[in-house]
C-alpha cells in the first residue's frame, strides 16, 4: 500500500463528499445569501478535492485522473470520514457538521503547508486560505443558532449531540496516519488539543453543551461506510458512468 496515495485519497474524499452534500443545499438555502454562501463553500471543497485527487492519481501512476477517482470508485474504495457523508438534516445540523469539520480542516491544512512533499504543501496552502473563511462562516453561525431562539438552540444542541460520536474518526490515528506522520504530513492525533480548544470555545460562547466523549464511530477510512454514502455516490456518479468521457 502506498501511504502517500492513501493519505491523499483521505484528503480528497473528505472534501469531495462534504462538498457534494453541501451542494444539495443549492436552491434550498434558508435565505438567498446563505444559499450562495453554502454553494461557495461547496465549490471550494470540490475544488480542493479535485487537486488532492489529481495528485493522488499521479502518485498512483496507473493513469487515473481526479475524475476517474471521483466517479469510478465504489463505496468500499472511498476513504472519507463518516461525518461528511451523513445527510444534511436541517440547517442547524448542516452548520454544526460543517463547523466540526472546518475547525479540524484548518488545523490540518495549516500543518500540511509544511509537508515534505512540495506539491501537497502547495495545495494545502491554497486550501488553507479557503478553510479559514469556511470556519469563520460556520463558527459565526453556530454562535447565532446556539445563542439564538429556543428552537435554534434546541436544534443546534441536538445536532451537536448526534454528530459528536462521528468526530473521533477525524482525530484517530491508524497505520496510514502513523506512516504518514513525519514522512509526509503531521499526524492527526497531534491536532486534537487545538481542535478541542477551538470547538469548546465556540460551543461555550454559543451557550451549547459539549457532549461527553463516549462511543466513537470508525471505519470510513477503511471503506466501511454508513448506508448514506452509496446513495450519495449513485447521484454523484450517474452522469459520468452513463456517459463515460462526456464533455460539455
Amino acid at each position, binding site marked *: 500500500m502506498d501511504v502517500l496515495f492513501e493519505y491523499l485519497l483521505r484528503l480528497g474524499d473528505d472534501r469531495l463528499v462534504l462538498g457534494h452534500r453541501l451542494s444539495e443545499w443549492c436552491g434550498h438555502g434558508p*435565505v*438567498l*445569501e*446563505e444559499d*450562495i*454562501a453554502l454553494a*461557495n463553500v461547496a465549490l471550494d471543497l470540490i475544488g480542493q478535492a479535485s487537486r488532492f485527487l489529481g495528485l493522488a492519481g499521479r502518485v498512483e501512476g496507473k493513469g487515473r485522473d481526479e475524475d476517474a477517482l471521483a466517479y469510478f470508485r465504489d463505496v468500499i474504495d472511498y476513504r472519507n470520514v463518516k461525518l461528511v457523508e451523513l445527510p444534511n438534516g436541517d440547517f442547524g445540523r448542516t452548520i454544526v457538521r460543517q463547523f466540526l469539520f472546518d475547525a479540524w480542516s484548518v488545523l490540518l491544512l495549516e500543518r500540511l503547508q509544511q509537508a515534505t512533499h512540495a506539491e501537497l504543501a502547495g495545495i494545502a496552502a491554497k486550501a488553507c486560505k479557503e478553510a479559514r*473563511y469556511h470556519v*469563520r*462562516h460556520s463558527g*459565526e453561525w453556530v454562535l*447565532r443558532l446556539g445563542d439564538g431562539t429556543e428552537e435554534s438552540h434546541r436544534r443546534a444542541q441536538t445536532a451537536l449531540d448526534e454528530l459528536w460520536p462521528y468526530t473521533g474518526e477525524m482525530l484517530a490515528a491508524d497505520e496510514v496516519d502513523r506512516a504518514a506522520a513525519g514522512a509526509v504530513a503531521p499526524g492527526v492525533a497531534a491536532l486534537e488539543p487545538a481542535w478541542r480548544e477551538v470547538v469548546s470555545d465556540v460551543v461555550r460562547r454559543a451557550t451549547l453543551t459539549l457532549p461527553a466523549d463516549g462511543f466513537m464511530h470508525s471505519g470510513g477510512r477503511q471503506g466501511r461506510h454508513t448506508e448514506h454514502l452509496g446513495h450519495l455516490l449513485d447521484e454523484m456518479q450517474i452522469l459520468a458512468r452513463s456517459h463515460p468521457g462526456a464533455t460539455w
Partner: protein
Amino acid sequence: MAAAANEPDHASDQWPLWEVFTQAKDGAPHEHAGSVHAPDPELALQNARDVYARRGQVVSLWVVPSSAIIASSPGEQGPFFDPADDKPYRHPQFYRTPRGVRVY
C-alpha cells in the same frame, strides 16, 4: 432612529437590508455594488463577501445599514437636479480658452 429602523422586520420575516461597497484596489474609492440581507454586521460582511467579492477583484468591503442612507426624494428631481441649461456659464464649455494657454 437609524439603529431601531435596522432591527429585524418580523412583520415581513425579512432580515434587515445592507448596502454593499467594494474597493477594487488600495486607494480606489469604495463603490456601491448592491445590497444583501443579514441579521447583523458580521453576517452582512460575510454575505457581501459571498455575493459580491468572490469573483471580482476586491481588497476591501463596506456594509452599511440601508436605513442609514439619506436619500433625495424622487419628487424633488426638478428643483434638486435641474441642469440649468439656460445658464450656460455654469458649464466649463462656455469659457473660451485664451490664446497662449495650453489645452490638455
